[in-house]
Each structure stands twice: as C-alpha cells, then as structure tokens.
C-alpha cells in the first residue's frame, strides 16, 4: 500500500505515452496527452497525503487537527484548469491542420513537410 499509488502513476504515464506514440489520429493523441497529464495530478496528491488526516479546511474543526498538505493541492488545482486551456490550443491546431492538409493522421502529416 505504501508504493501502490506510485506504481499506478508510472503505469498511467507509460500507457499514455504508448498511446501517443502509436496513434493514427491527432485527436486520439490529444486525449492520450490528457491521460499523461492526469498522472501528474495523482502523483502530486499522493505525495501530500497523510494517513488518518482530513482535508485542510478549518471552518468547523479545531485548528490543530492533522490535515493533508495544502501546497500540493493548490498546485494540482491550478494545474487542472490551466491544462484544459492548453488542450484547447492543441485542438485548435488540429482543426487548422485538417483544414490545410486534409488529414489528421500523424504519419501522413509527417510526410508533408516541405
């Protein structure tokens, strides 16, 4: 149990990378990139977890209850929203590539350079 979350993180990263490398469709590649990004969220939250602790919100519990790490939660939270916007930029590029070259296959797109 003390290393299982990290094994899952490594698995998700590798599976996502495999999807990116063996993909035949740009939108499929973008979704696999989303999966790779999600592995980092799990890693961040897994590092900050404390057994038996609660969420770091002291609205109705006394201030000295053991709580999990708030810093990694802050990092993961902005991460999720910002990377959705960057994914939107990638999607716009994919639409533009299809308009210019007529195909969304990375193999054919690679042969069209110059």
């Amino acid at each position, binding site marked *: 149990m003390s290393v299982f979350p990290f094994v899952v993180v490594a698995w998700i990263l590798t599976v996502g990378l495999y999807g990116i490398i063996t993909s035949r469709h740009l939108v*499929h590649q973008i979704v696999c990139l989303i999966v790779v990004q999600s592995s980092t969220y799990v890693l961040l939250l897994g590092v900050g977890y404390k057994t038996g*602790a609660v969420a770091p919100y002291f609205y*109705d519990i006394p201030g000295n209850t053991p709580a999990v790490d708030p810093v990694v*939660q802050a990092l993961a*939270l902005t991460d999720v929203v910002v990377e959705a916007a960057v994914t939107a930029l990638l999607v716009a590029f994919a*639409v533009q590539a299809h308009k210019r070259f007529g195909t969304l296959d990375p193999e054919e797109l690679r042969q069209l350079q110059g």
Partner: protein
Amino acid sequence: MPVVHTVITPSTVRPFWLMEAFQVTILGLVAAGATAVVLTRNPTRQVIFLSIYGVLLAILFMAFQAPDVTLSELTVGAVILPLMLLLALAKVRRQEE
C-alpha cells in the same frame, strides 16, 4: 461565527482499513480507466471514456482528501474537455464531406 464540534477524525468513526481499501480499489479503477481510454481508437468513443475517466479521477481525489481538486476535475473533465473535443471532431467531419 463558525461552529466548533468535537474532534471527529476519520479513525474515530470507522475501522482504519476502510479508507485504505477504498483507495486501493479506486486506484485500480483509475489504472484500468486510463488503459481503456488509450486503447480505444475511435475518437468519438474515446471522448466518452474520457468523461468516465474524469469522474473516476474526481472520486480518487476525494479519497485523497482534496475537495478543491475534485471540483476542478469534475467541471473540467466532464464538461469542458468533452465539449471541446466533440466540437473539433464535428468540424473535422463536416470538412470531410
């Protein structure tokens, strides 16, 4: 004025191993979900699997005691990302006609 209850940490309410078992289960489901998302080749079907994967991730973040990240992941992964991807796929399909 916030109300202060007595200290009710999770370990005083239910057996200690319940949270661990739940975390192990949901981690396994997340790993299976990621594999399913990657191995689906049809992009439209893959977007549906991505939504389910987002909900599984949100449950995982709740199990890790992170409600803020859960909120972000739910809204982004279930609404914004599938919407953008499906719109792009519709545009591509219309250009091919």
